[in-house]
């Protein structure tokens, strides 16, 4: 791996980290419950992107399955939370 790609991966991970910190700010500040659900959805997708970047960093395709699972579980979690906000029940 060249120095250029290593530096780019470091810069990208730092940018993701700052973005996740800013998203966590929205998660803690609210003000409404739907804002927190939106921030959680954002954080799960950025976490999935971190997995994909780590796959390039460590030159391993094993991270791909982890990223796919994070997409699916993030979707299920966001839908469950949004359904709960809509109805007060997840499964009716």
């Amino acid at each position: 791996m060249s120095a250029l790609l290593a530096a780019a991966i470091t810069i990208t991970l730092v940018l993701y980290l700052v973005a996740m910190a800013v998203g966590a700010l929205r998660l803690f500040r609210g003000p409404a419950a739907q804002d927190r659900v939106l921030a959680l959805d954002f954080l799960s997708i950025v976490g999935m992107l971190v997995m994909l970047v780590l796959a390039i960093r460590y030159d391993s395709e094993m991270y791909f399955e982890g990223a796919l699972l994070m997409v699916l579980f993030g979707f299920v979690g966001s839908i469950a939370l949004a359904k709960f906000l809509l109805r007060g029940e997840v499964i009716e």
Partner: protein
Amino acid sequence: MNGIAWAEAVVALLLVASGALVLVAALGLARLPDFFLRMHAPALVSTLAAWLVTLASIVHFSSRGEGLALHVWLIIIVLSITAPVTTIVLARAALFRRRQAGDALPPPLQGRGPDR
């Protein structure tokens, strides 16, 4: 520069672009004044930033001389199915909760009846 170096340069460019996009989306999520405005910002991540990272991954794993590595495309397909569903359900939940609380709703669409 040989082919591998070109591929690494392309991967580096795509990754840094996606990092900048994610940061823009996070700033939008933190700074926009209303929930329905804030919903627009994370869409940037689940569309363009995810596409850029996926393309970077495909270029990187295809440049090793073992053929095309297109399986990462599956993430884009799954994401393009799930992201609109999440957005719609969350927007409906937010509309419902605002209506219940009696808060200000966004203005109705032009040329539509009041049965929204």
